[in-house]
């Protein structure tokens, strides 16, 4: 398996998965079904997470084919610009979905303004993802071209969307133009790390039996701080990647770090989608969490410190993946 292969495997998730999410979400609104609604939000959140390695692996796919005859630089850049815009829309959808899941945990359904927002941004995401898929297909499949030169003949809708798609090379230059901007992004990345470790760390430690005088329910109220920290880190992380795409792509520590973040998503799913959360939700001071909760808490702590470790070692492991 190489990065090009990974890209071709993963891209199905944000493109098709968001359509499934929209289907579930719309049917939940029509049928006034809270469980279906929650399922839709979960699908959006998962697709937002998977969109990240999909995006990152694109540079590896580019590296694998850009020297081949018949491969157009213009079409690759068009696809990459479309991907940046679609990723933005996908992550916004994911953020509102996580907020909606938090609201539905407290009030059995998301707030009305959130439902309307998610409907709008998810539909935009589906449209933009369709465009990423088509522009990506155009790179290696001339048989699907609508006209002789797809980049020059965009059509009405395509031309409008094209105006919003950034130029990848200009974006890269912008991110690295000023070392104080880079320092600021890395600084925010550390602040996000602090928010995550402070909030999730406190909850994990309490579930493991530390500071038992704290009721679990109130410590759990810290989770939105962790989500906000995670959002800051996704934003600064993606911007950093766009700033130095080759540096990160061919670095094994970066990929294991992203994999660890996906495992943390799985860990969160194990916590919330099984009975584990219900078991601990109302635990008061002095009560001991059951073993499944302790296992999830321990793996959460190990994985987050693993993410920090891998992040710190990115610089030492540059160039450890071949391809360029």
């Amino acid at each position: 398996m190489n990065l090009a292969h990974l890209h071709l495997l993963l891209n199905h998730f944000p493109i098709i998965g968001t359509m499934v999410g929209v289907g579930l979400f719309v049917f939940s609104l029509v049928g006034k079904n809270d469980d279906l609604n929650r399922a839709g939000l979960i699908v959006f959140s998962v697709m937002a997470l998977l969109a990240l390695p999909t995006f990152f692996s694109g540079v590896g796919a580019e590296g694998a084919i850009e020297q081949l005859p018949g491969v157009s630089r213009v079409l690759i850049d068009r696809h990459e610009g479309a991907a940046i815009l679609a990723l933005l829309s996908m992550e916004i959808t994911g953020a509102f979905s996580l907020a909606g899941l938090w609201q539905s945990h407290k009030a059995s359904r998301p707030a009305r303004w959130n439902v309307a927002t998610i409907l709008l941004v998810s539909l935009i995401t589906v449209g933009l993802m369709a465009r990423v898929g088509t522009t990506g297909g155009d790179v290696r499949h001339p048989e699907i071209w609508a006209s002789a030169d797809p980049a020059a003949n965009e059509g009405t809708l395509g031309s409008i969307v094209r105006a919003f798609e950034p130029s990848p090379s200009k974006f890269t230059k912008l991110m690295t133009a000023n070392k104080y901007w880079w320092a600021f992004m890395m600084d925010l990345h550390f602040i996000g790390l602090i928010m995550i470790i402070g909030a999730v760390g406190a909850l994990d430690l309490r579930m493991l039996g530390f500071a038992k005088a704290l009721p679990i329910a109130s410590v759990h109220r810290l989770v939105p701080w962790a989500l906000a920290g995670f959002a800051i880190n996704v934003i600064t992380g993606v911007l950093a990647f766009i700033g130095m795409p080759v540096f990160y792509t061919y670095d094994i520590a970066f990929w294991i770090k992203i994999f660890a973040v996906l495992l943390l998503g799985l860990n969160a799913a194990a916590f919330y989608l099984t009975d584990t959360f219900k078991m601990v939700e109302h635990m008061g001071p002095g009560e001991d969490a059951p073993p499944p909760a302790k296992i999830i808490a321990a793996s959460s702590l190990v994985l987050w410190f693993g993410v920090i470790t891998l992040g710190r070692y990115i610089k030492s492991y540059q160039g450890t993946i071949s391809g360029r």
Partner: protein
Amino acid sequence: MALPLFLRSIEESSFSTWLRESESPFGFYFVLLFHTFGLAMLVGANALIDLRLLGFSPGIPLAPLKRFFRIMWIGFGINAATGVVLLISYPTKALTNPIFYAKLTMIASAIWILTKLQKEVFGDPTLPEADMMARGAPLAKWSLTLWVGAISAGRLLAYTFKYILYPF
């Protein structure tokens, strides 16, 4: 003005050279990693207490948060130790950078506030929560500001140095 020679002497020592040049995974990056762990423990827990003292998540009882002081002091210990080792690795780089001194000043101030929090807010177990909040809120504001400043200064060190090693 020539730079003090002791900087060069430290860099030429076998420990300093080993930290910088060894292929071992336990070199400079390992020390830097534990510096990040210590920061996560110290500032993560301190931020939690500061935000609580400023009124966020009022459902969390304040008194039990005293247990987190142990984590914070362990984090500080890790960072003091790793900080010294990092300084031994690149003494010229750090000591010729004014931002390094700003960082140490902010850390010293934040730790001083931490000791005040421990004594004045969490020191008396019979103190009612409302009094703890009243005493703690102004300290918490300064604590958060200083830690954000210290972390930012720390990050800037990687981008603002004038010398990486003693210039010959």
